[in-house]
């Protein structure tokens, strides 16, 4: 793998100005995926209980 692209951790955060967008998209994907998993597991529990 190529070398670490940023000089310091703080630089990695703001990626000279564009970091804000990258991290928003990161948060968006993280939230979307985790809520999907959560919702479907919730639905499974709900319908499982209904069958019992």
């Amino acid at each position: 793998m190529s070398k670490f692209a940023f000089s310091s951790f703080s630089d990695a955060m703001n990626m000279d100005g564009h970091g804000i967008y990258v991290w928003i998209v990161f948060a968006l994907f993280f939230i979307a995926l985790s809520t999907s998993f959560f919702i479907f597991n919730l639905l499974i529990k709900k319908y499982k209980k209904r069958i019992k």
Partner: protein
Amino acid sequence: MLREILIIVIKKFIHQFASPKTYFYQVNRLYPWLLYISLSIYVFAIIWGLFFTPKDFVQGHSYRIIYFHVPASFIAQSLYAAMAISSAVFLIWRVKLAAYLARSIAPVGAMVTFIALASGSIWGIPTWGTWWEWDARITSTLILFIMYLGLISLHNSFNNFDKADKLFSYLSIIGFVQIPIIKKSVDWWSSLHQPASITISDKPSIDPSMLYPLFMAMIGFAGLVACIVILSSKVQIYIREKNKNWVKDYV
């Protein structure tokens, strides 16, 4: 005469193999493995993509959104294709499981299309200066999102599942035929409409060191979405087969 025999054989094979019961148990066994493997691949690819790849000459660091946006929009379209194929299988061979799968893919597809749309427009801010730009790819992703919504609302408005499945299948097959047409017409429209700005083409011509994490992200994301689809299909099976006894004694 041979044709009838063939169809009967295929039908028997499909019904035996693709019965919801066998699918359910197979999937339960496969699910944990798939989840952990694809999660680790995806996390590894994102870390590699975000931190260990060089800065893009033109766009600076904002190009790193590509590791989110391109897999999402690619998976969104392939989910629609998967849905159309399982709808076709349902219509031709009357395999109930295919209808369950098609119906369970729809909400997941809508979610993936939405985050592809959002990441595409967020990516637009640094590159084009506006959050919404009628770029060909963003517009066709938006249309794809509308088609997903149309499919879900169509299926929800019928309480007779069999009727809902059939109508759902017809629309998803027609929609599938429409996707390349819409893509081409939007490209044709937007290419003359504004000077060819930086379009986020499917296969970005960037140097390989950025490509490897992209493929890994693609595979990881596909695995994760497959897990969500599996969960969604389990929900469908619980809804549809609730008074079958194999479901009762599983619960």
